[in-house]
């Protein structure tokens, strides 16, 4: 597909109107606040606020959600720098350099660099997204059921292989999620499965309530058990943008990390936390002063922050062009697209090319909005992270339930939310990762429907699965990624343990 320049310019015109800009500002501000509050992740923020977009036009809704996504990725760095707690998992790497800088009295410099790096990464991610996703989608137009099946399998294999401490628990979570996704009418013959005779289960567990439960309500149960006051460093936030010298000093890392972040974001299943840690490691290896890392080196801060924001643009590429989310947040966004009657995938470029370009434009504008709001509100956001948990946590519960109810005005959805909240809490407590479930809910039906479609075409001959080159490559990659992760499991575990120790040491001292 040719890149359509005139449509691109027209889309900027459509997005650059007071109404849409206002919505983006609201989204970005909400995103920064959500991101900066520890325990409230970007995934949770988007899931919690999707209900606010019911009944709004697609452009407004999606612009707001993209704004939340970008804002939250930056917001995580605020609490990482000021209170040693990552606001979102993606900001965990930011603590390692950000907090020592703040302790040295350079909180202003660290915050300014975090904002600029987020902006820089976001722009690179958005640019790559704008030019890469039409290409990927035109490529994907050739995809048949076999390729889609292979793609889903590849996505699932990546999620499982990166799902954290225990590979086995990641596998269990993924297969459990896939089983949940098979609840309801089966995609080919329409036979109702595992519905326990409930009408509401016929279409499977409702997506948004399930998400809100898994990611928001579970956190409420987690949060009420904690006590203790948050201690914030006295920070002198006198700087809005990093100095020219700092930018020049970090420029190489900014560029490299933005590309790494976009690339990792584009791999289905890998999200901002991984992008940030990999870029951070890369920056440390290539830095002229690796010994300064861990003691407040601004290069490390710049690379982790630019990577996690670049990741959001990258994660949009497979979402828009293939209908496969790149990370947990885009999985939630997929739900928002479907509520708007838009099915992401190559056909979106055929049927709604206007909205696709408007998404490119609003993603780009969101970065600028983030830069300005971040500069203007830097002192305010530093205060927001001290908001009283005893008020916030119950309010999140109420908002979760209301959001779950609002879509279909159905009390069943409220119970679903609570049930998944309890499930999510128990799983988190015992180290079962939650993201595999979320992605399984999307990739499961995709894998099954396409597998069975392929079987219809071949009249039950499984060799059709190996008849298409792209599909064979994708399945090969799936096997490789699984094999690699099993092989390097020990190494990954050791490194994770080391990261955790460093974080703990930082938090304890």
């Amino acid at each position, binding site marked *: 597909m040719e890149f359509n320049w005139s449509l691109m310019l027209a889309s900027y015109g459509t997005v650059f109107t007071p109404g849409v800009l206002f919505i983006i500002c609201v989204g970005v501000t909400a995103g920064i606040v959500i991101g900066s509050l520890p325990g409230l992740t970007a995934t949770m923020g988007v899931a919690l606020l999707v209900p606010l977009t019911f009944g709004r036009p697609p452009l407004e809704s999606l612009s707001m959600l993209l704004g939340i996504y970008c804002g939250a990725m930056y917001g995580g760095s605020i609490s990482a720098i000021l209170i040693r707690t990552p606001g979102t998992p993606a900001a965990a790497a930011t603590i390692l350099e950000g907090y020592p800088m703040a302790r040295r009295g350079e909180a202003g410099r660290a915050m300014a660099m975090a904002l600029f790096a987020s902006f820089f990464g976001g722009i690179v991610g958005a640019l790559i997204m704008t030019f890469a996703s039409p290409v990927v989608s035109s490529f994907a137009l050739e995809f048949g059921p076999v390729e889609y099946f292979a793609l889903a399998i590849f996505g699932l294999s990546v999620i499982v292989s990166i799902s954290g401490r225990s590979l086995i628990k990641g596998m269990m979570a993924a*297969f459990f999620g896939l089983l949940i996704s098979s609840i309801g009418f089966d995609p080919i013959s329409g036979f109702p499965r*595992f519905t326990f005779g409930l009408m509401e289960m016929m279409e499977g567990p409702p997506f948004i309530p399930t998400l809100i439960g898994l990611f928001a309500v579970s956190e409420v*149960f987690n949060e009420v058990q904690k006590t203790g006051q948050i201690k914030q460093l006295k920070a002198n936030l006198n700087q809005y943008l990093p100095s020219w010298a700092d930018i020049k000093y970090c420029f190489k890392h900014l560029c490299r990390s933005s590309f790494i972040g976009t690339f990792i974001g584009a791999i289905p299943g890998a999200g901002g936390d991984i992008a940030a840690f990999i870029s951070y490691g890369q920056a440390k290896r290539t830095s002229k002063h690796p010994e300064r890392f861990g003691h407040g080196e601004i290069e490390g801060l710049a690379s982790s922050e630019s990577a996690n924001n670049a990741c959001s643009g990258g994660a949009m590429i497979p979402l828009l062009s293939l209908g496969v989310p790149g990370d947990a947040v885009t999985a939630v966004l997929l739900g928002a697209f479907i509520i708007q009657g838009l099915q992401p995938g190559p056909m979106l470029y055929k049927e709604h090319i206007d909205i696709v370009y408007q998404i490119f434009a609003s993603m780009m504008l969101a970065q600028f909005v983030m830069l300005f709001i971040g500069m203007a509100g830097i002192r305010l956001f530093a205060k927001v992270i001290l908001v009283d948990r005893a008020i916030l946590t119950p*309010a999140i519960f109420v908002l979760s339930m209301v959001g779950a*109810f609002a879509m279909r005005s159905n009390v069943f959805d409220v119970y679903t939310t609570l049930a998944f909240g309890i499930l999510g809490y128990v799983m988190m407590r015992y*180290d079962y990762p939650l993201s595999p479930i979320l992605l399984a809910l999307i990739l499961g039906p995709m894998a099954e429907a396409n597998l069975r479609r392929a079987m219809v075409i071949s009249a039950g001959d499984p060799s059709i699965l190996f008849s298409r080159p792209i599909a064979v490559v994708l399945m090969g990659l799936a096997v490789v990624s699984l094999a690699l992760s099993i092989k390097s499991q020990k190494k990954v575990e050791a490194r994770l343990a080391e990261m955790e120790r460093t974080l703990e040491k930082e938090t304890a001292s």
Partner: protein
Amino acid sequence: MKVADIFGGALGILIGAFAIWEGTKMPVDVVMKIGPSFFPNILGGLLIVFSAILIINALRGRSKGKVEPYRLSDKGTQRGLITLAAGIVFCVVLDPLGFIPTSIVFLTFMMWVMGKRNPLLIAVTPALITLAVWLVFEKVLSLSMPAGVLADYL
């Protein structure tokens, strides 16, 4: 974590077995050879396999990570259980009682559970939060909330 892993594995095996057992009751497709039960059978089977590995690892003392056991005397655990109970009550009474009263009572109670004792704060904040949520959903977004006992007044 050892006991927890064995328990989690056992639960996984049960869920997998249930999926396969339910699958035996589904019709078989003659054309494609694979019917509605094909996918759940594979998933259930693999869930059982990995659950079994988890149990075996736990028995061989290879469980990873630590988890603090629950103690009923622990304040955090108590708050967690109270929240769970309050959450269930919230869901049950939401429809008959209506959103506004349910939400105000729930927020007041939870703020108290989480250690707020300032009477003015406890009296005003829940009402303000509830009103804000209600206004946004009901008036700005025109999404209906359960009206319950206030149905005649809203």
